[in-house]
């Protein structure tokens, strides 16, 4: 009884309330106060997002070669981004597998030169006489293709016919990569292109795994990085920085045979609308419900020849 109990309030650890020691009730009160904070923070954060977006965009614009802002400069009207609907047609019957598109893409977008990193690549489908299919894509097809398929097991097989299938991001209407991103760093623009805000990407790789078309990769560090960021997700943007300025994607310009057609599907007079009216078109993996906006034409003569 020599010292009052209240002196516990002087404890430097501060575990007291108004000079008396913490008791059970205080701890429970504290817990009761914390629970709404924990639960409410994500909800409250929804209103904070615009500010956060502004902040990250500011950081992003300090980086070299970030994709151009979503507002198109050549289009003339601010609403043009929404009343256009980009589409992409690949004519398999025209592709000669030269690899010019892959080369042009890597140069245009600073894609790492290692063969496993590609925004676009070309596959060769070799159909054997017994109907089995061998697919190869040596170095993404950037150097063209050797006469024989390099796919395992293809050597010595009598090949009935083969065709080239250029691949790129499908810019899905219903993109799995956008749905899975835990921090909303990947998103779909009003004109239907899926982009990555690389200043917000955490590099978890979920979108890379989620993409049914293998169109994404994590940028390795090194001399070539598309936007200056390493360790973040990257993918084909249909050269958004070019198309928003009224130009064609680099691969479309580079293709010597016109196998790639890019255009506005809302414009009935555009070449792409004409092709899709006149020829049967296919999308890849339609059963997944992703609604790709890359259409393949000319498959009939190739796949069933």
């Amino acid at each position: 009884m020599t010292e009052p109990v209240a002196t516990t309030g002087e404890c430097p650890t501060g575990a007291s309330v108004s000079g008396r020691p913490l008791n059970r009730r205080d701890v429970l009160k504290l817990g009761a106060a914390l629970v709404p904070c924990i639960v409410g923070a994500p909800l409250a954060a929804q209103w904070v997002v615009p500010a956060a977006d502004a902040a990250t965009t500011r950081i992003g614009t300090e980086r070299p070669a970030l994709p151009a802002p979503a507002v198109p400069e050549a289009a003339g009207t601010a609403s043009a981004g929404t009343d256009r609907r980009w589409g992409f047609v690949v004519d398999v019957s025209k592709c000669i597998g030269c690899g010019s598109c892959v080369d042009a893409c890597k140069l245009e977008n600073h894609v790492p030169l290692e063969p496993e990193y590609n925004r676009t690549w070309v596959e060769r489908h070799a159909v054997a006489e017994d109907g089995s299919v061998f697919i190869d894509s040596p170095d993404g097809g950037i150097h063209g293709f050797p006469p024989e398929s390099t796919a395992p097991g293809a050597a010595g097989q009598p090949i009935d016919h083969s065709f080239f299938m250029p691949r790129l991001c499908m810019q899905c209407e219903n993109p799995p990569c956008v749905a899975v991103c835990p921090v909303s760093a990947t998103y779909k623009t009003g004109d239907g292109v899926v982009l990555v805000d690389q200043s917000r990407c955490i590099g978890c790789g979920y979108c890379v795994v989620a993409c049914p078309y293998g169109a994404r990769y994590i940028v390795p560090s090194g001399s070539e990085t598309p936007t200056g960021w390493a360790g973040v997700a990257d993918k084909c943007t249909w050269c958004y920085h070019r198309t928003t300025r009224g130009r064609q994607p680099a691969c479309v310009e580079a293709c010597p045979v016109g196998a790639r057609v890019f255009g506005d599907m809302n414009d009935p007079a555009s070449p792409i609308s004409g092709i899709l009216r006149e020829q049967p078109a296919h999308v890849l993996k339609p059963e997944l419900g992703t609604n790709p906006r890359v259409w393949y034409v000319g498959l009939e003569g190739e796949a069933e020849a």
Partner: protein
Amino acid sequence: MTLQVAGHPLSLHPRLAWSTVRVEVVSLPSPLKRWLGFLGALVAIGAVGAVLTIPPGDEVFGTTPTIEWGVLIASYVFLVVTTSGLCLVSALGQVFGVEAFKPVAKRAVVLALAFLLAGFAVIGLDLHYPIRLVFGVVLSPSPTSAMWWMGVLYCIYMVFLLVELFGMLAGFERIAKVGSALCLVMAIAAPSTLGAVFGVLVSRSFWSESLVPVYMLLTAILSGTAILGIVFSMIDRPGIARPGHEHSAAEHAAVLPAIRRLLALAIGLVLAYTTWEMAVAVASGAPAAHGAAMAQLTGPLSVHFWLLKVGIGLVAPLALLALPGLIDRTVVLPAACLAMVGMFVDRIAFVSAGQIAPPSVASGVASAPYAAYSPSLVEIAIVVGAVGLVGLIYTLAERFLDLSEREGHGATAQAAGGGIVATPLARLGFVGRLPAFATVAPEAMAAQPTVVEPIVADGTAASTLPEPFEAAFALTPIDALDPALATSDATPDGAPCDNAQAGNQPAPAETEGALP
């Protein structure tokens, strides 16, 4: 400012703190020293790997754009699902009142936290920008992403685990009870969300099914039970607990038989699941699911699947556990170790198999070669470090916290000590320097043995130390409140006693007037 860690004072003055730590290290029994050194080495290996990982985008991992998730994701799944398993098993005792599982409560929570922290460390290193994750999850939430939900749930889970641990160590039984109920809820919600991270991917047909979250729960019970089996087979070894904190084997006599049965049940369930998972995948028309199953049955993952997962990880431990002639103590440890190895390999096989059929082969019209992945040395180092971290956290907790459940000890000192009232932090074992939180009855004080000098094991008397050192130790440790423990702490080997300083300067001790 001095901290009192489980009855042991630790000055925050660097020199004094170092000297206290040195004394503590010197007083460790040799086998424990070697064990801690081994674990420390594992953590150091992991730290080297972690440093090499920090520059974003450096290609220190073996992952490729085709197999983007490697052994670190598998390890993360292994670690955090084990966390949930520990809570599920602990809840059998804490929430459902199964007597045999009551003694596992504290150790389960400590282990669950250790596994969760190690899991967070691994996933943090796997991400290239973990800081962005913290801000991104809050500032740009993405409720369509299972990974976002997983992150949120695991963070809440950790808070609940800390609440439960606080309740247990501080002796607030109701907080501990509520905490364990909340942890039970999260132990179901969090790993099933983790399963959904894989299950929602339509592009990966081997993962893409609603049963993956259920599989996470089944395997959680398996690995959680197995790790408890390992721990409860080992804790009786002398020298782990601090002198005076040893527990009797009778305290948890019922645990091992119960673990044996539960582990056998969990293995049986996982075996059944694995059988039908494979059968369905083989029959599947989806090329990725079929390819994943064939890769495991006959392809590059067949060693993982048949030898390590099914053979060593499931069948062998089940056979051991089911052998009628062997006593629990003999079979539980090897069976649990094998089961843990099997579960770790299962995570690798699961994560690899889902990606092994490459998606960039158009339309799934053709079979493709299996994608190849082998972990890099850096990835292996991080996994090794994570295992070391779990071991280190748990061993230190076993040594310096009171994890036993017996009556009249630690958390329940109030009942046993008669007239002792301790405030929450004191009950937890942390005591501020002045004045002490602890209050003690005179008769309890009278029962203290007056030991003045065994602070330092190398023979230096406490009284010869500089003034601040003595002052720093002038506390009434919580264990001093319990006379029975006080006497048992005076160990013959000269190890520092928890209450050694109580006789020096009893001034902070204070009689609680309200009690006789």
